[in-house]
């Protein structure tokens, strides 16, 4: 953590401790947009951390944006930080000023016709109904077009993931004006990669948080006359979890520090490694928490349900493992090690 990140973490912790209570999250899961929380994040500039100032961002390093996403995930913040950032990065990457309001990104299948008719659907757009504008990539004759369209132009079918986060089906059929799209650069795959990178950050943050919750709970819960933390079986499980969490954090940090030069392979390694940790860690966290952790009343589930949802988004472990396998098997095997050492 550098000095800039320490400052970000401090203000984020303060803000989220105040405004992102268990009740806030519960209400969001019932459909109430946490406006106060979002506006506080927007006012402090945290929602645009790392984006260039001259394009409306808060300045700093793009690594900071993923860091914000990771830290906010510790609180299970029910706001579209990841999507807002993804959209902002795509626009600012093209030299465009970041739009006002809440942005989301629609990963889907969109076409732009020769007369600028945008049509297509996205099955599960994060926080779609709460956004002001939707960023998406449409294609025309194999060319990618970055499009920004007000949410009011879409047909929105509301749906939630298992964490109660809005994942709305969006569809559209609309003639765009020239100011609403930008061609000339292949960007669809890049958007998918950044989307996956945000999931790595989200998962790593939530994993760190459930480790902390589990450690703390184990020192407080007393059975057989002592804190369950004193039982070796519990210690060994938490130690296993600590290893998975440490690996996940290291993988997430790698993507953060390499954000500007992020490759397909780096994202694949992060998404598959951290995705694998989710199964192991949620298993242990719930085991340690006993029946209490299996209730809506306890806040553990606000993290674990999100982890189960996020590991499915932007490609499961297997999708990325195949990509990694392709990268490494294509090389002569004596080059295998060579390839590993290129990855600092």
């Amino acid at each position, binding site marked *: *953590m550098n000095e800039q990140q320490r400052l970000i973490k401090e203000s984020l912790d303060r803000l989220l401790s105040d405004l992102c209570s268990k009740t806030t999250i519960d209400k969001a899961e019932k459909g109430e947009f946490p406006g106060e929380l979002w506006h506080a994040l927007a006012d402090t500039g945290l929602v645009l951390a790392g984006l260039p100032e001259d394009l409306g961002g808060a300045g700093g390093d793009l690594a900071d944006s993923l860091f914000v996403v990771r830290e906010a995930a510790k609180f299970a913040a029910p706001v579209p930080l990841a999507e807002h950032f993804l959209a902002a990065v795509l626009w600012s990457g093209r030299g465009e000023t970041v739009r006002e309001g809440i942005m989301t990104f629609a990963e889907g299948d969109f076409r732009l016709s020769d007369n600028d008719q945008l049509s297509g659907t996205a099955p599960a757009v994060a926080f779609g109904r709460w956004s002001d504008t939707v960023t998406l990539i449409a294609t025309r004759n194999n060319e990618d077009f970055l499009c920004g369209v007000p949410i009011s132009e879409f047909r929105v079918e509301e749906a939630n993931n298992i964490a109660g986060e809005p994942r709305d089906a969006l569809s559209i059929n609309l003639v765009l004006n020239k100011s609403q799209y930008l061609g000339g650069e292949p960007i669809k795959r890049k958007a998918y990669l950044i989307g996956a990178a945000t999931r790595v950050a989200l998962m790593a943050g939530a994993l*760190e948080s459930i*480790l*902390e919750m589990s*450690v*703390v709970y*184990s*020192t407080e819960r007393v059975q057989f006359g002592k804190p369950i*933390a*004193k039982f*070796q079986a*519990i*210690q*060994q499980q*938490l*130690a*296993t979890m*600590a*290893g*998975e*969490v*440490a*690996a996940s*954090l*290291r*993988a997430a*940090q*790698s993507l953060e*520090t390499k954000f500007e030069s992020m490759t397909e392979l780096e994202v*694949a*390694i992060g998404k*598959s*490694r951290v995705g*694998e940790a989710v199964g192991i860690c949620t298993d242990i966290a719930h085991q340690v928490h006993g029946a209490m952790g299996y209730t809506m009343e306890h806040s553990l589930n606000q993290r674990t349900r999100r982890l189960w949802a996020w590991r499915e988004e932007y490609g499961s*472990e*297997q999708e*990325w*493992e*195949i*990509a*990694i*396998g*392709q*990268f*490494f*098997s*294509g*090389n*002569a*095997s*004596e080059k*295998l*090690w060579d390839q*590993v*050492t290129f*990855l*600092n």
Partner: protein
Amino acid sequence: MFQGLTFEPFALPPEAEALRSEVREFLADSLDASVLPNSDFNAGDSAEFSRALGKKGWIGITWPKIYGGLEKSFFERYVITEELLAAGAPVGCHWIADRQTGPLFLKFGTEKQRQEFLPQIIRGECFFSIGMSEPDTGSDLASIKSTAMKTEGGWVLNGSKIWTSYAHTNHYMVALVRTEPASENRHAGMSQFIVDLGNENVSVTGIKNLSGEEDFNQVFFDDVFIPDDMVVGKPGNGWEQVISELGYERSGPERFLSAFRVLVEFSREISEDADAYQLALLGRLMAHLVTLRRMSISVAGMLEQGDMPITEAALIKDLGNTYERLVPEVVRLANLKNPSSRFIDTLNQCILHAPSFTLRGGTREILKGVIARGLGLR
């Protein structure tokens, strides 16, 4: 307050990467192509190879120049060790002296010991064994029974050590023994001695492991006289000294690369024509490997800054050993149509060595105990 365990990213500096190419050239010239490479640091030894490595200055590379070292960083040492393992070089002879005996002498040894042993170790001419385990002492190291009694000008050593890797070929052992009877404070009253394995009152009996090799031994001490100047550090300070080695002992690439040659052979098998299932198996294992390596480099960075990251090292070893054991279990399910005998031999060698990965250097359970302590649970 809960403290998580983090491994801040460190990038290997350019001089370490430059050294990597040199090491590769050296390995290309000096490895015996008729020997099947094995990345397990305990699975191959060649005094000749270690001497050649010493000539290059690549043993004890971080040590002071006055003893013949090059005063290079832990990153450079890291690069050398990982290159040797990845290539499956026979590193068994010098591994322990380079990894922990040298650092032990630098921290606790007398000037005379440093002058006598470090230059020889650096030249790849003097090899050390670890003498900790005994027939009745494994994980509970404080329960050792071997003793040394004070006598005129030295000590008289009796007892036995077991599982001592390469005691049959190495020159010395650093033995941890009781110099005072066990007391209330279990960790008091132990001392470390440099034992000449060629001493006529020391006998060494080989023990066959699962693959039929005899690379570990039982060592018997029968009134072995140890002169005073072969005591390492202060008599009675043995426990503290042994603990101080753990950061070096547990965090290096040998804790996750033991099965690496299996991956090399597996990727060779599927290089022409791989199905999605096989690719996913390889991909999963590579994602783990890259992440572990980054964590281990982070620890090299901590060592370079002068920290002694005992909990972090235990965590890497546990995670890495679990991974090393996972590799053959995953690869065997790849449904290869016509696996080559080279692949099968490499996989079988790994399967036969795998049980040792989570035992040597501290068992899985003991490591998890160390991590749990780091988490504040005990």
